[in-house]
């Protein structure tokens, strides 16, 4: 029996294999700096992918996604032992679980609202989490707290990864990114994913069809929160330091930016968005102290000329190219992806 595997899965697989080669490439390319930058991109990619599930597939625009990312990072910082390496499996599970639990609780409250209200209410709840960490001594207040020793991943007493090495950390981030993509792809093919897309297109009709839309939306919110916890875990391990800024609304704004920039409703779009955002930020920061000016200008131009994001831009280019190759079919050139309501 040969089971059909979609071409998209092959494309993802090829991309991940190519990316996994980065640390073994010769020096100017495979340098420690590039590995760390690559890990940064991958962390943001997981973060953006988790938000994509909400924004692009469920139609829930959250401006408070950093709450879960930051909560997971804080969980790592607070649970990791001070004097010895923590158990990586346990810390990963705990941080993801904590983020998912927080998302579930906040989700229970915010599911009563919709549309614009949802944007503002998620923002306000994230801000609440921010102030809890900023104003109390729970996580060192506004100064933040440290993860002194990176956690260890062991299997049967055998140490699998040495996270002090940037290459090993990069591979861990890549592995977790691949797992996130795989999980999201499976979810989207399953009943849950179909229900979510249905809700995005017409929630009224889904409810009329007997679907408990609130439960599905809550499931999506919790799953997205948990997945952003994976990114939060990696962030805390990479930087060894967490402070309330990672919970701040700018972080949520950046995540939304990556999703919209990359292309709404597209998993590769989220990754592309994270990739361009991190690299642009790095590039602009190298150019000037006032790099946010360039970033702001870039965002404004991107909104003006790329209505469907980078992924949409590629689709448009491909459409143009095919149209030139087959002029007789010019009338049926695929338009960029349909827009979200």
């Amino acid at each position: 029996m040969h089971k059909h595997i979609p071409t998209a899965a092959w494309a993802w697989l090829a991309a991940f294999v190519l990316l996994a080669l980065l640390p073994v490439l010769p020096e100017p390319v495979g340098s420690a700096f590039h590995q760390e930058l690559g890990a940064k991109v991958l962390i943001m990619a997981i973060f953006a992918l988790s938000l994509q599930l909400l924004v692009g597939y469920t139609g829930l625009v959250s401006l408070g996604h950093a709450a879960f990312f930051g909560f997971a990072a804080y969980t790592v910082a607070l649970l990791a032992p001070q004097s010895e390496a923590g158990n990586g499996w346990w810390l990963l599970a705990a941080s993801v679980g904590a983020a998912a639990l927080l998302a579930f609780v906040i989700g229970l409250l915010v599911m009563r609202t919709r549309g614009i209200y949802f944007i503002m209410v998620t923002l306000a709840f994230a801000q609440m989490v921010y102030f809890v960490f900023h104003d109390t001594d729970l996580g060192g207040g506004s100064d933040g707290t440290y993860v002194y020793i990176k956690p260890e991943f062991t299997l049967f007493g055998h140490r699998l990864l040495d996270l002090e090495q940037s290459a090993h950390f990069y591979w861990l981030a890549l592995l977790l990114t691949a797992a996130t993509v795989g999980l999201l792809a499976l979810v989207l093919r399953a009943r849950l994913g179909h229900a979510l897309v249905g809700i995005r297109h017409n929630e009224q009709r889904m409810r009329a069809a007997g679907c408990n839309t609130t439960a599905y939306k809550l499931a999506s919110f919790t799953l997205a929160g948990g997945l952003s916890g994976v990114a939060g875990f990696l962030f805390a391990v990479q930087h060894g330091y967490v402070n309330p800024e990672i919970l701040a609304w700018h972080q949520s704004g950046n995540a939304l930016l990556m999703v919209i920039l990359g292309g709404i409703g597209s998993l590769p779009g989220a990754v592309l968005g994270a990739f361009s955002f991190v690299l642009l930020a790095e590039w602009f920061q190298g150019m000037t102290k006032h790099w946010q000016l360039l970033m702001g200008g870039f965002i404004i131009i991107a909104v003006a000329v790329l209505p469907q994001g980078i992924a949409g831009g590629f689709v448009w280019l491909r459409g143009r190219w095919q149209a030139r190759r087959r002029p007789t079919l010019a009338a049926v050139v695929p338009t960029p992806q349909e827009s979200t309501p």
Partner: protein
Amino acid sequence: MDLTTFLIQCLNSVQYGLLLFLVASGLTLIFGIMGVINLAHGSFYMIGAYMAFTLSSLVGNFALALLLGIVLAVVLGYLLEWCFFSFLYEREHLSQVLMTYGLILVFEELRSILVGDDVHGVAVPAWLGGSIAIGNGMAYPVYRLFMSGVCLAVAAGMYAVIRHTRLGMVVRAGSTNREMVQSLGIDIALLYRVVFAAGMALAVLAGMIAAPVASVYPGMGGSVLIVCFVVVVIGGIGSVKGALVAALLIGFVDTFGKVLWQQAAGVLVYVLMAAILLWKPQGLFRQGT
């Protein structure tokens, strides 16, 4: 807490609430009419505070600086809408959110380039410098009363315009049914530009009159923006009356929270919002009221 302290805290609550109303009313108007979530609204407040700082030292007269600032704000708001938003209405909401997010970054950096990152103070004008004794040796600064007075005057003016003028009628109609207003032959593009300019002027005015009390510092826009979101959500998006009630409510909760329960003060406002949303998911008042 004795009666005098209580009275002073009440006055502070009202003053803070009214200031919040000034910022939030612009936010809620822009949303109600144009359907734009303006994340850059906090930046407008910040711009106002920095205008008060630069203009009052340039002109040398606070009242004149205030007037000049409002004129500048209206012009700037008009131009901003024209350059950055006029082509976005056909698109989904998210493009507009992203556009305003980009504008925040631009405004913050322009501020940093033009004025620097230092914390500044703006002197209270001499003719408002005194304070009024209210017994027990306590006194209340006149300037804070002046702030409340300005906010109340603006609130009354807005009420009059929205309820009793032709423009107000169009604004109310526009927040209920945009297409219908357009089909009645009203230039909706112009209406948008006017509302956006007015909303910006409100935020700038708030920033300017707040400058002598709160110091002028780089991150001031962001914190105000988030609290204003809470105000708008509690009051009901698009409702100016709701914004007033919610702003006063937040003013009291925040001021007394800081006095009575220091650690929880930052969170208290959001707990209030969560409680109100559980009770009334659409806010206290309907859109267009």
